[in-house]
């Protein structure tokens, strides 16, 4: 898994290369754990977490669980979670699981 982590202003962006599925979701979860453990003590005062899934064509149940876990932790911290997608199939899956009601979904212009 080759995520990019970018911090700009009050937004932290986690970029996932490719699909978010059972074989790479654990690595993302590890990144998320490190991010939250670092917390404000490391000077990371972010208010928005952006999960960039523009490269994903598929998100499976393990990937969804990872997103739910991230969402809950962000909410506990008082932060917002945005999910950026480009593939309509990813959007459908978020809709099936009602995650679209809990997340801010962003679709970049083509």
């Amino acid at each position, binding site marked *: 898994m080759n995520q990019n982590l970018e911090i700009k202003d009050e937004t932290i962006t986690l970029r996932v290369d490719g699909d978010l*599925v*059972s*074989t790479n979701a654990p690595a993302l979860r590890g990144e998320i754990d490190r991010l939250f453990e670092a917390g404000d003590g490391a000077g990371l005062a972010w208010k928005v977490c952006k999960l960039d899934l523009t490269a994903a*064509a*598929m998100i*499976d*149940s393990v990937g*969804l*669980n990872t997103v*739910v*876990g991230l*969402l*809950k932790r962000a909410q506990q911290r008082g932060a917002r979670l945005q999910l950026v997608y480009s593939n*309509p*199939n990813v*959007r*459908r*899956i978020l*809709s*099936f*699981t*009602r*995650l*679209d009601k*809990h997340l*801010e*979904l*962003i*679709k970049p212009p083509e």
Partner: protein
Amino acid sequence: MPAPHILVVEDDPIGRDLLQIALANRGYSVLAAANAAEAQECLSPAKINGFECVVTDYRMPAMNGLELLGWIRERDPGLATILVTAQCEKELVADSLRGGAIDFIDKPVDIKTLQQAVARAVEQTRRYRHMAESESAVREIGRTQQRILDAHRIHGRGIVEVHFYPKHEAGGDYFTHFQFGGDRLFCLLTDVSGHDPQAAYVSAYFQGYVRGLLQRNATVPEIFYGFNRLLLREWNQDGDSANGETNVETSVAACAVQVDFSNRTARVFAQGTPAPVYLSQDGAVGVVGESGGTPLGWFPTLPLQQVIHPIADGNSLYLWTDGFEDLADRLGVSRLSLACALQQAKERSQPPACIQAANDDVLMAVVHLAAPEPAEDLRPLISESYHGGQSTEIDEMQSYWRRSLAIAIPELTDSQMHDILLASREIMLNALIHGCARRADRKADFQIAYLPKSRTLRVRVDDPGPGHRFDIARQERLAALELVEAQQGLLLVERLASHLAFERGGAGVKMDFKLSSDPSTEANVNESEP
């Protein structure tokens, strides 16, 4: 042998006579033309094949020798021509060679040089024409094979379909089938080493040998042993008998299937071919016997592989050569999905696009046993077993499923493909992780089949586990109220499949996907969210 016919073209009457006499003295039959127009009359379509060389002067009125040469090449590229040029026309040599003249001669013409040049030219023409005839004969052999193999035969008890895509114009792949004894059907798939008229000859000879002996009530083992001896003792050279080595020149891989409708059995003999695949009417897929075995013509001792398999009405048997399997491997798809692709292409009367990637002749035959009542055609696309330790390979499995589905059903939309793969992934992971407890000694069966009439794709996963007590309806209600992190997989599948059924307490899963609609057009998704 009749004297070769030569056409001499020269506008100077003295020069023309000299050429004519010089060549006639060498035993040639010579016709002379005074200019290019006369030469063209002599070389009319009905007559041009009668000439074996044209000797033409370069400088002639109206049409020069080089132009005449070009005219001849368009009509008979194999007819050798000689251009006679004067000293000052030397630079034309390069043009004449590019134009295709076999030779050129300087003026004044040396008689011996002329005679030698014509002899070479005649030889060249004959060689070219002989090769063209051989190529034509090879193509005719290939066309004959194709015509016979292309038949879609209907017997009283079933249908035999044959799909043959030769890579070469003639070769040793062949399939034949016939009824005998009233209640028996015999099928023979042959793959002779080589892709040339010799292989085609051996293949046809073997097919006739088998048919003749069967009609004399010989058994398949007797026939195979007999042909093995024939190859070793008469066609291949016997080597040192002490170490059993043989200089193999011709070998025959063969798969014979004897269907006995009375006993409801199929007796299969596979010598050096892939093992046939059996499909039951309810979609179960199995391999009959083992692939490989010793082809005929290799060793004096021929270990015969014979398997007796029960058959039932409505069942199908797939036979294919190693060229077919090689193509499936090159494409990275399942054999069954490639079989479906060939069948679909034939139904559309189109050559399958995937055949371009073939490195060898591709031959597949399917024997369909008639069912007493019509049942929906079911085409297996993928039938695999995965063990519990392979859950980490799910990405590779998914890619393999994707390629196989894409080749068998190219009209699958991106959304349809996504839903089938995602649902299959979820169920398969469940089977490997929970049903097989990630153990390498436990296997889950995975199958995808296509039902063309109802345009349905059916996925089946069976694992050896105890099943589950997952209450989908309850979890759906919970998920509507709050976010749940666990058990998302089955909820997802329930939304993706047109129909979902659990068997054996959940250890067996059957999912149907209707392809008559595109999920992306049905989704009620608001795309205008910020």
